[in-house]
């Protein structure tokens, strides 16, 4: 296939562009719409329509299977404001994001810097740290659950060796959310590492040499003067992406704790799932989705603001 493309490419193109026959021009003017039609239709059906739909639904009392729906204005939002579960869920989500983002970003950055600071075994380390990103999270969540088993788990077994009685991590309301955070960091660090590695590679070597000539003799000074300022756009970018991804946390919560014990690990998307797909309260679930969207939108705006600044600087 690529051979035929090469041959077509090597065919000499006449210097003077031939005037195209009118029929061909006409054909060309309609074909673009034919080419984009399937994509546009599906986009409206599966993406933009549903997005408008979720916002509209959030102002209704629709329940799946109900014969009719009525417009109830902001009632879902009022209900949400008075619902303790919603506030717990929102707080837990923010705690989760607040822990996982710094944890996974700093781990990713540290690992990337360490890998890049030497030449030995680079690709082996990169592979190992990237492994959790690839592995099906649900399967690994089940493994983590067993590792955190209060009695037969590896974690408490190791703690026992040093004389500490570990808690029942996922069954204890004081620790459940934090255990999920640990799994989140473990899973996301390698992804951030890859993004940081790409950023580090693009820093010109001469800058380090110049810094050294200017008296930045310690590794820390070179990091502070060269690496950190040049890596800042990448870092902000990684922070925002990690934020968006951790806001979407669902898999580990649903399989390991179902938001429990007593809502201590309930998070936004899990509440939305429960309301929308277990109780089939579509309207209320849609309102929860809108709240989730507002947070994602905020993070996205930060991201595009940064991207624009990056373009202006370039």
């Amino acid at each position: 296939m690529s051979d035929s493309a090469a041959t077509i490419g090597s065919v000499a193109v006449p210097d003077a562009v031939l005037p195209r026959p009118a029929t061909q021009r006409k054909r060309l003017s309609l074909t673009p719409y034919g080419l984009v039609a399937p994509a546009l239709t599906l986009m409206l059906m599966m993406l933009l329509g549903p997005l408008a739909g979720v916002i509209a639904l959030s102002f209704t009392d629709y329940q799946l299977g109900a014969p009719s729906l009525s417009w109830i204005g902001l009632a879902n939002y009022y209900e949400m404001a008075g619902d303790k579960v919603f506030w717990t869920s929102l707080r837990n989500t923010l705690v989760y994001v607040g822990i996982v983002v710094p944890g996974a970003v700093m781990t990713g950055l540290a690992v990337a810097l360490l890998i890049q600071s030497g030449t030995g075994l680079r690709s082996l380390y990169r592979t190992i740290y990237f492994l959790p990103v690839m592995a099906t999270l649900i399967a690994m969540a089940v493994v983590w659950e067993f590792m955190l088993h209060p009695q037969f788990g590896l974690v408490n077994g190791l703690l026992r060796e040093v004389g500490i009685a570990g808690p029942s991590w996922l069954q204890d309301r004081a620790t459940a959310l934090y255990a999920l955070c640990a799994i989140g960091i473990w899973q996301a660090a390698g992804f951030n590492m890859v993004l940081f590695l790409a950023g580090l590679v693009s820093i010109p070597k001469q800058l380090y040499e110049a810094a050294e000539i200017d008296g930045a003799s310690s590794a820390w000074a070179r990091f502070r003067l060269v690496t950190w300022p040049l890596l800042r756009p990448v870092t902000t970018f990684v922070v925002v992406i990690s934020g968006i991804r951790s806001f979407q946390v669902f898999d580990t919560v649903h399989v390991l704790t179902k938001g429990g014990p007593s809502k201590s690990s309930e998070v936004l998307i899990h509440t939305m799932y429960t309301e929308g797909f277990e109780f089939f309260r579509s309207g209320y679930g849609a309102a929860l989705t809108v709240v989730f969207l507002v947070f994602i939108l905020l993070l996205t705006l930060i991201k595009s603001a940064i991207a624009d600044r990056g373009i202006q600087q370039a």
Partner: protein
Amino acid sequence: MKHPANISLWSVTRHILLIAGAIVMLLPFVWMISTASKPPSEVFSSELHLIPHRFALWENLQVAFAKANLWRFLLNGVIVTVSIFALQLLVALPAAYALAKLRFIGRNALFALVLFGILIPPQATAIPVFLLLHKLGVLDSYAALVLPFTISVFGIFLMRQFFRNVPDDLVDAARMDGISEFGIVWRVMLPAAIPAVTAFGIFSVVAHWNDYFWPLIVLNSEHLRTPPLAVAHFRNAEAGTNYGALMAAAMVIIAPLLVAFLLAQRRFVEGIALTGIK
């Protein structure tokens, strides 16, 4: 200037730190394999040991395959991910070509919609898409698993960026050879864009092989379960009683992607890092 002793000291420190981190990263995998290789008496013992006294991996795998139809679930995973990717290409490539190489009224507006679409997280459209599939009467089917993902705005964006760098001469020459615009997409653009298609393919397959949220919502029937759903159900049925078999099942489910990853690491890292652009 650095002293050689300094460098080797740092090199040792670097390896110690990276190995320490690597142990944490690998621990769940190692513990999974270790537990999957232990008989129940050793799994339920408070004494920690990595290497089983009696090697029971084969038995645990047999139990896992007997209790859950793992072959069927793996096959479902293949059917769903391959159909999604094939349909994504079928829909995205012509659109990407039109956006990259053809002039038409509304092109910029359409591209703006694509860029906007990239920002919409999949959870946001779940309720209306679910209601739509319910109306169409296709819930609990392969169609329900595949249809919502046939449109990948990210794929359109990625391919459009790549197609823009394909020389116009190539397209013009193909036109002069009498190839239709639709033909150009598949016979000229696709072959030129194989690296981008591969990266997008890895991104797409990994995302949908590992997806749990959507199959959980639209499926009821056991025989349609995708691998992550299968692990979750296995866990609900067996947790607390048969960890060895559960870990063996988890191993089976993650094996296909991990093996593919280890065989083509560079491509996988590139493909997954694409999500960073999103």
